[in-house]
């Protein structure tokens, strides 16, 4: 489990991270979102014990960051750009990482075989890292971060540079790991975060803007229920019928498709209200044909854009 309490980090007089508090539970994948320079990598560096926080505290599996050697044993960290020893081959690199974590020779061998299989590295195990593509280097970094079977994984943009097939494989791997371990990952790819993460948090200028599941974030940003409807027949009667059921509902005719088809938008300030049910009942009651109906959904991109003030 990761528990951060008001962690801040100053670079000179500028806050890179400010009063950040959050919790990532075991068996959960948490996505860390934010525009460039928002403080994502700094947050991860603090939790991986690379940088000490200027103030605040954090615990990994109940161990305070002050006990940094113990924390590092429990954390598997993939830094941004997945650095690795380019002069070594993949096997030698992974051996080095394993030995630094104190793995015995027999365990090390088994772990290298297991992780190279999980990350698809078997074919390049004896090739020098400098000869590998960016995607393979990323996979080497991932394998290295998981080699010592850590309780907690901190992955800074783990799928950068991977091709679509590799991305799917790595996402599946992270999801599998997330069932038992605590995973915190950052990404710029919002659909990826939606797919992989159980919960997500959005930070901007080093401060937490929102935290929760995808549905919670979207729900929070929803200003109400919006329903787009295409009707043929007694449009006004349907609108009045719906307004009779929900007094606060507003109706707007936005277009006439053909002579007898109208496009309407029903809006209600309550985001939890079931407008579709009311419109369907009204159309049936008024003998009007319902041709099309879809709710306007707030996407994660919209939430991200609103909270960070930048395009996703």
């Amino acid at each position, binding site marked *: 489990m990761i528990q951060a309490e008001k962690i801040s980090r100053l670079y000179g007089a500028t806050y890179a991270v400010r009063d950040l508090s959050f919790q990532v539970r075991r068996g959960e994948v948490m996505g860390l979102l934010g525009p460039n320079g928002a403080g994502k990598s700094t947050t991860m*560096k603090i939790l*991986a*014990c*690379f*940088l*000490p926080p200027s103030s605040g505290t954090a615990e990994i599996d109940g161990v305070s960051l002050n006990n940094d*050697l*113990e924390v*590092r*044993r429990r*954390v598997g*960290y993939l*830094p941004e*750009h997945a*650095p*690795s*020893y*380019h*002069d*070594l*081959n993949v096997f*030698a690199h992974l051996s*080095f*990482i394993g*030995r*630094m*974590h*104190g*793995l*015995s020779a027999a365990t090390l061998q088994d772990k290298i075989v297991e992780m190279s299989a999980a990350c698809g590295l078997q074919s390049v195990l004896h090739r*020098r890292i400098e000869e590998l593509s960016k995607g393979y280097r990323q996979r080497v970094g991932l394998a*290295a971060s998981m080699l010592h079977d850590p309780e907690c994984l901190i992955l800074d943009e783990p799928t950068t540079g991977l091709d679509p097939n590799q991305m799917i494989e790595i996402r599946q791997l992270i999801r599998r790991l997330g069932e038992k371990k605590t995973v915190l990952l950052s990404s710029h790819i919002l659909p990826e975060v939606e797919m992989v993460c159980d919960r997500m948090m959005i930070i901007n200028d080093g401060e937490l803007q929102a935290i929760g599941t995808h549905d919670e974030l979207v729900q929070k940003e929803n200003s109400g229920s919006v329903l787009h409807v295409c009707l043929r027949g007694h449009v006004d009667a349907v609108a009045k019928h719906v307004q009779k059921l929900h007094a606060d509902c507003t109706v707007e005719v936005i277009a006439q498709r053909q002579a007898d088809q109208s496009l309407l938008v029903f809006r209600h300030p309550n985001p939890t209200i079931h407008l579709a049910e009311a419109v369907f009942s009204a159309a049936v009651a008024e003998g009007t044909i319902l041709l099309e109906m879809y709710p306007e959904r707030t996407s994660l991109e919209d939430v991200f854009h609103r909270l960070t003030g930048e395009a996703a």
Partner: protein
Amino acid sequence: MVDGMSLAWLQIRALCFKEWRVLLDTPLGYVIAIAFLFVNGFFFEMNLFLFGQADMRAWFYTLALVLMFFIPAMAMRMLADETRSGTFELLVTMPVSTSTIVLGKFLALWMQILCLLALTLLYPLTLSCLGNLDIGQVLASYLAVVLLASSYASVCLYASAMTRYEVVAYISGFIMLLLLFLLSKAIPSFSPVMQNWLFLLSPLSHYQSMLRGLIRLSDVMFFIAMSSVFLSLTWFELERRRWR
């Protein structure tokens, strides 16, 4: 999994092994070894034919100068390259203390230098076949050069910790060694009181004192102290980075 001191030793061993692997898997190690032997062979045969005696003292004097050029070259990438390529972040987020990193890097570098020096053992072997070589003096001189190499290695490791650029690490390491060399050359121009102090602080003075075949505890302690000071400075520099 192991813990405590044994883990630290395993990590030091892993660091040394990794540095050796890089040295032997790239042309770097071979180029340095060939150049080192070429330069030393040149000075050895020059001294041998110039004096015509089975004596290695002159060669040991020049060896101190040769090391001033070679040790910065071997040390420059040790920490500067880790910083530039981002592997320093990987290294320090593993359960390893800064002192273990410094010690591992230092021992790797020192052992690499010792291996180069071991290659020169051919010279005293040749000389002992040709004439009457003072083995005791040669052994004391080798101990002196091993200790001198340790202090030079710690100076250059510190230079490598201060920057992310290898060339800057080489130049700053070389300049620090050059200043120490010039210090010993400038000793006679100071007042007698100052001369005593400067003699104490000059690695070359201690080195030359040992080349006479006399192993004094003060000389040995000086090299150990000098290495410790620069290794502590390296430790401080690496720790300081986290708090910037």
